[in-house]
C-alpha cells in the first residue's frame, strides 16, 4: 500500500517510537505526505500484524496529528529532509455511557475513590453512596445546607470497610462522616465538624495519605486540618438564641474541630485548595480563587510560596495531574489554564484550553498522564489531551442544557455529577 501511494505522492522520512508494548523495529519509513492518522494506524497494525486492530494516535513534536502530514509540515515549517520522530499510542475510544444515578437535587460533587462505589454530594445536604450496580447503599443527611464538595480520605489500611468522607457545605462547616461497608450492611455516622469559616465553603480535599484536609471558603481563607477525631469539642457554641436550632442540627456526638493552620493570602473567594501530588511535593498545596490567582503554599509554615497571577480569570476549580507536573485551572472566561509546574518561577499560564461554556470541574486521569476530563455548564464533558490543547479529543454530551458540576475519573470510570444527578461514563484506552 505504501509503495503505491508513494509513487504518486512525495513522502517524508519518519521514525516511529512508542511506549506501548506494540513497538516497531526502529527504522526509517518513507511516509506519503497525504497520510493521516488512519493510514498511519493501519500501517502500524499491518506492520505488527496484530490479531485485533488497535487504533493508534500519533504525536509529532508533542502534538497530536490531526491533519495530513503535508498540512502539518506546512503549519510547522519542517523541512522536507528532516526525519520526523512520531510517537504513537493507543487511541482513546469514544466514551460510553454506563449508567445513570438520578438524584432529586443537584449533585455538587462526586467521588469514585472508594472501589466499586460512588459517593455523591448533593445540594439537599445529603451524601449518598452507590455501588456499581446503581444500588443506593447510604443516604446520609450530613448538612442542613447544600454540600459543595466531598472527598474520600484514603484509609491507611486498604482493605478496611470503614472510610471517612469529608464534606464541605454552605453552612460554614465541613463534616467528617465515617461510613462502614461491612458485611452487616452499610452504616454511617457524622463524627466531626470543622469550624473555621465565616462564609460558605467551596471545597474540601485531602492529601494522599489521608491525614490532612484542606478547606477553602468564600471568605478567602484556607483551613488546614488533621483528620483525627478529637475526644472533646474544640469550639464552644455559647449562643443562647441559637441553641434550639443547634441542638436539632448538631448533636453532641459530632465533635467540633478547629484547624491546625489557616492559610491567609487570597483577596477574594477561594474556590479550590488541594495538596500537591507527587513524592517531591510533600507538604505543598495549591489554591485558586476569584482574585484570578493560583497560589502555592507551604502547608507546614502556612506561607504562600508563589502566586501566579492570571489577569481577569477568576478561577472556579483546580486540578493537578497525578505526577505533579501540571496544574489545571478552570476559570469563568471559558478557559482552562495550564500551568506547567516544571517551569521555574512560573508567573503565568503556559497554555489554555478553550471551552464553549464555563468549565466548572476538572478531573485528571489517574493512570494516563496526559488526559483530562473537564465538565462545563453546557452539559458537555470534554476529554483533552494535554499534548494538544487546540481542541478536545472528544466531547460527550451528558445532559442537554443542564450544568455539569463535578467530575471524577478513576481508572476507566468517569463519574459526572451535575444538575441532572450523576452519570457514569466509561473511557477506554488512553494508556
Amino acid at each position, binding site marked *: 500500500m505504501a509503495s503505491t501511494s508513494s509513487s504518486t505522492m512525495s513522502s517524508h522520512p519518519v521514525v516511529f517510537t512508542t511506549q506501548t508494548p506494540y513497538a516497531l523495529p526502529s527504522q526509517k519509513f518513507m511516509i506519503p505526505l497525504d497520510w493521516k492518522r488512519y493510514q498511519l494506524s493501519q500501517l502500524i497494525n499491518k506492520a505488527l500484524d496484530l490479531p485485533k486492530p488497535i487504533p493508534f494516535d500519533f504525536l509529532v513534536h508533542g502534538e497530536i496529528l490531526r491533519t495530513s502530514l503535508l498540512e502539518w509540515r506546512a503549519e510547522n515549517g519542517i523541512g522536507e529532509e528532516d526525519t520526523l520522530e512520531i510517537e504513537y499510542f493507543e487511541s482513546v475510544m469514544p466514551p460510553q455511557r454506563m449508567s445513570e444515578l438520578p438524584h432529586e437535587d443537584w449533585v455538587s460533587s462526586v467521588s469514585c475513590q472508594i472501589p466499586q462505589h460512588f459517593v455523591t454530594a448533593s445540594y439537599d445536604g445529603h451524601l449518598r453512596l452507590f455501588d456499581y450496580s446503581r444500588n443506593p447503599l447510604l443516604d446520609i443527611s450530613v448538612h442542613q445546607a447544600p454540600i459543595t464538595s466531598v472527598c474520600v480520605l484514603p484509609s491507611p489500611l486498604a482493605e478496611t470497610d470503614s472510610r471517612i468522607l469529608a464534606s464541605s457545605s454552605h453552612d460554614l462547616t465541613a463534616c467528617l462522616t465515617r461510613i462502614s461497608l461491612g458485611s452487616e450492611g452499610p452504616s454511617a455516622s457524622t463524627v466531626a465538624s470543622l469550624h473555621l469559616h465565616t462564609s460558605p465553603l467551596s471545597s474540601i480535599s485531602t492529601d494522599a495519605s489521608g491525614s490532612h484536609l484542606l478547606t477553602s471558603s468564600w471568605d478567602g481563607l484556607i483551613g488546614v486540618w488533621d483528620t483525627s477525631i478529637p475526644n472533646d469539642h474544640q469550639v464552644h457554641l455559647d449562643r443562647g438564641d441559637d441553641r434550639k436550632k443547634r441542638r436539632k442540627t448538631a448533636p453532641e456526638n459530632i465533635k467540633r474541630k478547629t484547624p491546625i493552620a489557616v492559610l491567609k493570602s487570597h483577596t*477574594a473567594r477561594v474556590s479550590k485548595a488541594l495538596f500537591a501530588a507527587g513524592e517531591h511535593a510533600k507538604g505543598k498545596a495549591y489554591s485558586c480563587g476569584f482574585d484570578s490567582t493560583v497560589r502555592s503554599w507551604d502547608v507546614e509554615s502556612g506561607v504562600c510560596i508563589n502566586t501566579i497571577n492570571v489577569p481577569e480569570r477568576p478561577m472556579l476549580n483546580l486540578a493537578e495531574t497525578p505526577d505533579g507536573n501540571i496544574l489545571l485551572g478552570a476559570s469563568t472566561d471559558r478557559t482552562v489554564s495550564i500551568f506547567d509546574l516544571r517551569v521555574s518561577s512560573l508567573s503565568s499560564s503556559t497554555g489554555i484550553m478553550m471551552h464553549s461554556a464555563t468549565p466548572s470541574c476538572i478531573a485528571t486521569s489517574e493512570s494516563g498522564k496526559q488526559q483530562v476530563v473537564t465538565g462545563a455548564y453546557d452539559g458537555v464533558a470534554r476529554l483533552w489531551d494535554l499534548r494538544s490543547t487546540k481542541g478536545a479529543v472528544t466531547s460527550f454530551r451528558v445532559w442537554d442544557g443542564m450544568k455539569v458540576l463535578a467530575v471524577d475519573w478513576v481508572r476507566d470510570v468517569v463519574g459526572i455529577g451535575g444538575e441532572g444527578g450523576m452519570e457514569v461514563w466509561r473511557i477506554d484506552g488512553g494508556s
Partner: protein
Amino acid sequence: MAVTGLGKVRNKRKQEEVEEVEKGPFVGAVDLEMQSEDEAEDEDQEGDDASDDGDVDEFPEIDAASDSEEESEEEEEEDTDDLNEEDTLDENSDADSDLHIFPKSKKVVSDITGQTKVVYPEIEPDYDSDSSTEDDPNRVGNIPMHWYDDLPHLGYNINGKRVLRPAKGDELDKFLQTVEDPNSWTTAFDKNAQMDKPLSAEELDIIRRLQAGENPDAEYDPYEPTIEWFTGKGKEEVMPLSSAPEPKRRWLPSKWEKQKIMKIVRAIRQGRIVGSKPTAADKKQQFYAIWNEPPSNQPPPLPAPKPKLPTNSESYNPPEEYLPTEEERKQWENTDPEDREGDYLPHKYPALRLVPAYDQFIKQRFNRQLDLYLAPRIQRVKLNVDPNSLLPKLPTPNSLRPFPNYKSLQFMHTKARVRCLSISPDGAWVASGDESGVISLWEVNVGREVKRWSLSSKVGAIEWCPRLDACFFVAGTEERLHFFIPPNISPAMLTMTQSTLAPPTLPPATQSSIKWISTSGATEDGPILTIELPSASGLSRQLTWHRKGDYLASVSSSETQGSVWMHQISRRHSQAPFKKIKGAVQMVLFHPTKPHFFVATQRYVRLYNLAEQKLLKTLMPGIKWISSMDVHPSGDHIIVGGYDRKLCWFDLELSEKPYKVLRYHSRAIRSLHFHPTYPLFASSSDDGSIQIFHARVYSDLMTDPLIVPLKILRGHDVQEGLGVLQIKWVNKQPWLVSAGADGSVSLWCS
C-alpha cells in the same frame, strides 16, 4: 442690367471730375499723377503718343477676357475701375495732344549716335515742382473772403507773411485789359488770390461741352462700340439652367405623403393618436406687462476678468529655461488633469509651421457642450472614503477587557416574569423577585437556588443592604417593604443583622403614618421586618440604599404625592422627604459621596441637597419619559435612560444638558447600571438585548469621559413587549446579572 449700371457709375465719375477741374489749382497735380501711372503701366510705349489711342481700344478686351470667369458683382467693380483708368488716360492723351500743358519734348539729333531722340526740358526738382506741395500762396483756407474785404492783405502765406491784395484797377482798367489781352475772356476770378486767373485748357473744354449740351466728360463716348461679352466663338456662357420641361412631381401631390397622412388620419379617427390636451397656459395666454416690475437696483454683473496675456512659456518656441525637464514631464503626465499646475507643457518647435494641430481641440469642444448641458466640466470621481475612517477612533473592545461577553448560566423563574434582582455586596448571592411573589436566593456562580420566599403580592424591587457587617435585603411589594436575612451567614453577622432589624429594645416610636413591624422571633422563612407603607401607595417600584446602609429610599408607583419615602433603619422611622413633587417620580438615587439626592420625574432629573434641603440642579435630558437612571461611582456623572430609547450621559460639572445622547436600543430602555469598580456600564431594553459600554471617567477635568460600546448581549426573549427588566453588576467581578420578562435570570461572564 450690368451695362446700364456701368453707365450710371461712369456718369457719376465724370461729374466728380468736372468739379475737380473747376477747382483749377489741382489740375497740374492730377496730370502728374496720370503721367506717372501711364508710365508705369506702359513702359514699352514711351514717347509714342499715337499708340495711346490704340491702347485704349484694346484695354477692355483684355480685361474682359481676364475677368470673364469671375463673379458678376466683382466684375462690375473691376469694370468701373478699369474704365476709370481708361478715362483718365483718354483725358491725358487729349491734353497732351491739344493743349501741351506739359513741357513739350524736342526731337534732337544726337551728337553721339547721329539718331534723333526726344529731349524733354529739365524738370527742376525744387519745392514748387512737386505738385502735392505746390499750393496757393494764400493759406487762409476756405473761408468767406469778405472777412478780408477791409484789410490791405488777403491772408497769409505759408511763412505767415501777409499776402497783399493785388492792385485792382477800376472798370476802365478792366475794360482796357479785356481789349489788350486776347486771353482775357478765358479768365475767371480767383477768390483766394482776389484776381483774375486764366482758365486751363481742360476747364475751357468742359465749359465748351456744357455750352454745347454735351457730356462734360471728355472721354465719354456716347457711341461706344458694343462689346460682345457672351457672343461669338468661345464666349458662349454655359448656363446651369436647362430648358427641360418641369416634371410632374413639382405640382402633383405625393402619393406616399398622402398614404402617410391617411395613416395618421385613420389613427386619429380610431383614437390611437390623441392630441395633446391644451394646457392651461395654452388656453389662457398669459399676457403681462414686462415693464411693470421695477427695475432692479442691483449693480450690473461684473465684467468678465480679462484673460491673462500669454507668457513666454506659451510660445511655440519658448526659451530653453521654460522647457520642462524629463522628470518634470513625467511627473506632469503622471498627475491627474485636475491636480496639474498648468494645463499645458511648454514645447519647442523650430518653426511655426511645424506646430501641430491643437490636441485639446475636441476635448474643449466637448467641454463646451457640457457647459451647454449645464453639466460640470470636471468629472468628479465619487469620493471613495472608507466609512470606517469617518468613525471616531475608539479603542478596540479587546483592549478594554474584561467585560461580560457570554451567558454563563441561567436561572429560571417558572411562574412569572422577573421584575427585579439584587446582588449581595460580596457578589456571591443573587436575590430575584418575580411577579408571582416569589423571591429566590441563588448562588451567582452555580445558579442553584438555596432559599425561596413566597409573598402574597408581586415583588417590584429588591435591594441588598450595602453594609458589610450585616447581611439582609429588602423586597418591595404592594404597600409593604419586607426585610429578609439570607441563610448560612456567620453567627456574628447574623447577630448583627438581627439586632439591626429587630433590636430587643425598640427605639421610641415616632410620629409617622408608617408602621414598622418586627418579627424577630419568627422563623427564617418569613421577613424579619416589614414596613407598611400608606395604603393605596401601590407597588414599590424602586428601592435604593444610602451607601452607609442606614437610609433606604423607596419609590411607589402611585401617582400621589407620597410616593417617595425615606426610611431610617436605626431609628425605625420613615418620612416623606418631599411635600410636593411636580410629576410622577420615576426613580430616586443617593449620591455616592455627598448628601445629595437625585429624583427623576417623568421629564427631569432634580438634584437636591438633603443637608441643606434645597434644589441644586435640574437636569433636562430631553427624554419624554425617564425609565431609569444611575449615578457613576465617582458621583460626577449620571446616566438617564428613557422609554423613548434614549440614553443621556450627564456630567454634573457641566451643563444641565446631556454631555452625550445615545440611541442604540430599538425599544425602550428598562434598566441602567454602572459597575461599582470596573469602568463599565450596561443598559437593558425591551428589545431583549443588553448593551455593555466601557465608560472611563477621568479625574482630569479637561478630558471628556470615554464611552465605548463593547458588546450586545442577546439571550432574553421578549414577552408581551417586555425584554430585560433589570440588570445588575456583580460587585468586584465584571459579571452582569439580568432579569428578563421571560422569567429567566442570566449571569453574563467575561
